[in-house]
């Protein structure tokens, strides 16, 4: 099971937080801070696994993270997940973001956190991995975005039609 997925930048600013277990907002912020603290002080060429972390930890849990340019992607998982498998999953996630945003950068995540959530929802659901096939994820995300667009168009035509002159 995945307990939480966090994305934050090199300064610890959260860009996405998804907790699959309930915490209060304060605890969530503390967890993000602590995780950032743990992850950020690690060298670039050490391993991507991290044990401990008081708040989210527990002996069964691990932090598995990757650092891309200005962003850290951190998954907190228990021992039922394969460590390398999760690293691959993070890669899939980032590649999917890259496809969906066309050369994704931190700004995309800053301004479209809702979209990132929607993409993530096609990949991980309730803490369990739903889909690992990037093409399938993108197909579903695109189909939903198309639906959204058609609804917006309806809306617009409707309001334009009735717009008082």
């Amino acid at each position, binding site marked *: *099971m995945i307990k939480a997925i966090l994305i934050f930048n090199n300064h610890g600013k*959260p860009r996405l*937080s*998804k907790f*699959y277990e*309930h915490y*209060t*907002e*304060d605890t*969530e*912020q503390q967890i993000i801070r602590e995780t950032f603290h743990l992850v950020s002080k*690690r*060298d*670039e*060429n*050490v*391993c*991507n*696994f*991290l*044990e*401990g972390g008081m708040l989210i930890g527990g002996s069964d849990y691990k932090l598995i993270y990757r650092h891309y340019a200005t962003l850290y992607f951190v998954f907190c998982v228990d021992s*039922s997940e*394969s*460590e*390398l*498998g999760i*690293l*691959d999953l993070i890669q899939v996630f980032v590649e999917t973001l890259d496809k969906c945003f066309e050369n994704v950068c931190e700004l995309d995540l*800053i*301004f*479209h*956190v*809702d979209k990132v*959530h*929607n993409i993530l*929802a096609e990949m991980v*659901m*309730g*803490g*369990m*991995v*739903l*889909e*690992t*096939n990037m093409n*399938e994820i993108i197909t*579903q995300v695109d*189909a*939903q975005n198309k*639906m*959204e667009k058609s*609804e*917006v168009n309806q*809306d*617009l035509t*409707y*309001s334009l039609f*009735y*717009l008082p002159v």
Partner: protein
Amino acid sequence: MALKIVKGSIDRMFDKNLQDLVRGIRNHKEDEAKYISTCIDEIKQELKQDNIAVKANAVCKLTYLQMLGYDVSWAAFNIVEVMSSSKFTYKRIGYLAASQCFHESTDVIMLTTNQIRKDLSSPNQYDTGVALTGLSCFVTPDLARDLANDIMTLMSHTKPYIRKKAVLIMYKVFLKYPESLRPAFPRLKEKLEDPDPGVQSAAVNVICELARRNPKNYLSLAPLFFKLMTSSTNNWVLIKIIKLFGALTPLEPRLGKKLIEPLTNLIHSTSAMSLLYECVNTVIAVLISLSSGMPNHSASIQLCVQKLRILIEDSDQNCEPSVNACMKYLGLLAMSKILKTHPKSVQSHKDLILQCLDDKDESIRLRALDLLYGMVSKKNLMEIVKKLMLHVDKAEGTTYRDELLTKIIDICSQSNYQYITNFEWYISILVELTRLEGTRHGHLIASQMLDVAIRVKAIRAFAVAQMATLLDNAHLLTGNMQRNGICEVLYAAAWICGEFSEHLENPMQTLEAMLRPKVATLPGHIQAVYVQNAAKLFATVLKSQEGNTDSTAAQETSQLMIDRLPLFVQSANLEVQERASCILQLVKYIQKLQQKDVEIAEEVNALFAGELNPVAPKAQKKVPVPEGLDLDAWINEPPSESESEDEQPKAIFAKEEPKHSRPRHTEVDEKELARRREARKQEQANNPFYIKASPSSQKVYQDTPGVEHIPVVQIDLSVPLKVPGLPMSDQYVKLEEERRQKERAEKKKKEKKKRKEKRSGRGKKHDSGPESEEDITPAHQVDIVTEEMPENALPSDDDDKDPNDPHKALDIDLDKPLADSEKLPVRSHRETPKSPAEDGDTENAALQEPKKKSTKEKREKKKDKDRDRKKSKEEKKKKKHKHEEKEEDLLGGQADAPVVQSEETSEVVAPPTSTNPEVSDLDFWLSNAPVPSNTQEATTVAEAEAAPPPEAASGTAPDSEPDQPQDADTEEAKSSKHKKKKQKKEKEEKEKKKKKKHHHHHHHSDGGGEESVQNGTVEEEEPLPPMSNYCLLAENSYIKMVYDIQGNLQDGSQVVVSVIFENKGDSFLKSMEFNVLDSLNSKLQRPDGSGPHDGLTVPFQLPPGVSNEARFVFTVQSIIMPQKLKGTLTFIVKNEDSSTHEKLDFKLHFTCTSYLITTPCYSDAFAKLLESGDLKGSSVRLEGVNMPFHHLLARICFHHHFSVVERIDSCASMYSRSIQGHHVCLLVKTSGQTVSIDAKCDEPTLLGNVLDEIKQTFSQC
């Protein structure tokens, strides 16, 4: 209306959207909080508007603010509003917000039940998807209960996108509503073989997650997972399955044997590192489970460890450094798994582990620490701890240092201080650890000090000396006053000095140290111990001083107490205050007596006399409940409810008082008092922290049977004890080394004297030989007192289980047939069309309905009455007997032929037999299965194949007997005919007995894809003959080939041909090449780049007498006709002196049956299928079939890939599906020796061919 909408959209154009909000926040870096609070005000305004678009926009912004740490739960109701919008865009926003901030105690969740249900059944798959995703994050027990049935229906949705989400969310439903596990499990299991890989993966995920917590309940699924493992190409699924097998192998070592081959194949073939690593991990688990009984396997373990060492040590220059670091980490992780069972194999790599302690990566260091724990021995403990102490000094950051500290203590104290040879050294280590600043483990060190001082009697004198030094230097430790800080050790120091004060060199000095004013700054509980133990010390000092002629010294001591104690009397801490004032009064009294020259030291000492016994921490819990005592029973009649209500105000009133009003002492007779006193004494005797009142009580206690008297051994110290100042543990390492050397030398000397000298002294009585673990004698013979347990302590198996673990509730037997009461709650209006609460009141009904099981059942019975008053009696009766009837409500009223029959005939149903069918199936699979796991087993299969089927059919299968020896090998497969006959007789007798109470069973789902499982489930009580689908392909004097064809689950145009090659001669066969002449319709899949006529190399060679299996994939276009393909196998026969090139022609026969895939089918789906009218019928009669009906069904299932949908006496409905999705339905009836099969299929040609093949199968019998 229109105007409103227009206004809304215009408003929206001026509203801030999410992007504006983000931009705004970024532009207000200085006063972010203020800016956000104005934004929240705006949002509140927006939420008040009627326009849903505005609301959705506001909610979207709130979701962002939630991420920044703002509590947005106040908008929960607005979120629900947005969730219920009809537009997907807004719905998605609503559900996202809900998933981010709803939780179990959000009260508006109650309102969402119906909305979610509506969305789940929406015609738009994305509405359903979004609802499922949201629900997965905030599902509550109520939601789980109310929606379980709806979600279960979605598991069979036509869209794989919905199916996979529904399957996955079931795990969350199980967690919140464990009762749903059993009813839903058959369908979940069915999804393991879903044609869509995504759904399959979801089902694997869920079952693996379930099985991880309670693996033994899922052992029966092993064959199915095995099949998936050999057929799946999805790495994620493979990893999950392989991890699951890793958890299952310790429970079933035979499974491990089967796994080795496919795992090694994967290891060789996969390019994914993640999969490779998990394979290696599971192989290790297998080796461990196999070698636990047999020591000769440890060679392979050794090999594994060596390979892991390479992984840890070598870094691949081509990889990124972080990847190498990952591998290093994982290598250590895998090693720790081996360490648990094979510590010796890992111990030889101590150097490597110690080296890893120096790694710059903290994660790797922590892993290495973990390993060290298992690697210590008497010999290396001091060395390892010394190394660790160095790291403690070097460590930056308290987390890692604290981890080091706990590990040092763990390592030393493990298995009852087994590896400690010198306790003085250990005490010095503990004292050295107190010098750590800012540690959070003061308490841990303190408890170790106490434990050692109490339990190792020989060390007390030394410990007391050290503790006295600590108390003297207390100012060094009081810098850190935080909870659990290092000052905690003073608690231990004070207590030890007080309790064992007779060992103190200079008690007066210590007493002074304990009464320093600075002590008042320590935490309360430590001060309390100080005060109490100062009193103990005082008693000791008095005793020593009273012997002297000069009484002034004693009076001075009392004066000191009287001077210093008032400081503690003023303490804000109640405990300190109370103890101090008691003792102050006592000392004042003593002083008075002293002034009268009364000798009181004896009496004062009596206050603290008595010995303490260490009691195990769980001792209290382990006291067995005496027979006849029911702790839950009321002692008095419980007050009636009305009474308790009346009394409540009184109780509250009483509660306000008790602190002031002393409990009134009612007159208690002498006897009762005596009894209570006795009980108290007993209790005190068992309480380690209770200081015994007098030596006499101690004596009584020691005389009680069962408590061993612990001898105290005099110690003869070879090491000078006096260590000035704080001790240095390093000294001990040196001394220990010297001591050992001396000992060795002495031993040698002794040997020279040919052991003439009588052995004497401590611990020099060991045999010669190289210095081994056992040779190291403890520095002083110490007696580690074991912790006491009550007599007849209960065995501890549930000790470490957390009662709050949600998975505990999921420890449910899944193989038991479903009982009637286990239906999932269904919305009642569906079932009770006549009920008054029919229209509109669905929510109410759904909420009320499943509250209590008993009421639910009652209601259901009522419903039945309503539905069919005439038949009500009959129905009730039937209900009692029926098992696995959960589908009843899904069937509704639409009854079709088989179902009607079931209702008519299912009146007499035997209860399920006690033997667990799945387990024996597993045994069957583990002992003899069509997929060979190693060459020997392959032979078995081949030989079983060679035996003509009719004979096999009449005999029983020895393998499926439950008490069959575990590993069935070749010999057993060839078990003598004599044995078979005997069993046959037995079986016939059994059959006669059972004939009347014939049990039948509704098969909704148990018939998973695995053949052997299916064999078993058709009829549990009678073992079936072993069957094999492998038939002869070709044979000559060198080689024999048998083959089986299976459809590919994931690809509608592929079939897999498994061929077993058996080397019949005594020469070596190599370079085998398999080739067929493709037809237009069927083609052999060849690797990219090879021509259409190239052969395929068989990936193995065959030594004499060995067989092995290879698989070949064929693509087919049309599957409605059987066909044959000609082919050739070429190979080289190699003898000692010569080699020849040989070839063997064969004909591959693709029957229509081989295009069918065993697919389980629910009776409701089956009924719908038949009703739909798309199917064309055909029928066939078989004459002279002389076998029990269930054998007949098993044969059809096995050879023709069908599954039984339902069976009623001599009639059964069966189902199968072709790889291209044709449905094939059979209705099989038997009367006498005639079997009639009515069949329906959407492709008549296919059906005709399948029927012909079935006919053929039975004509051979």
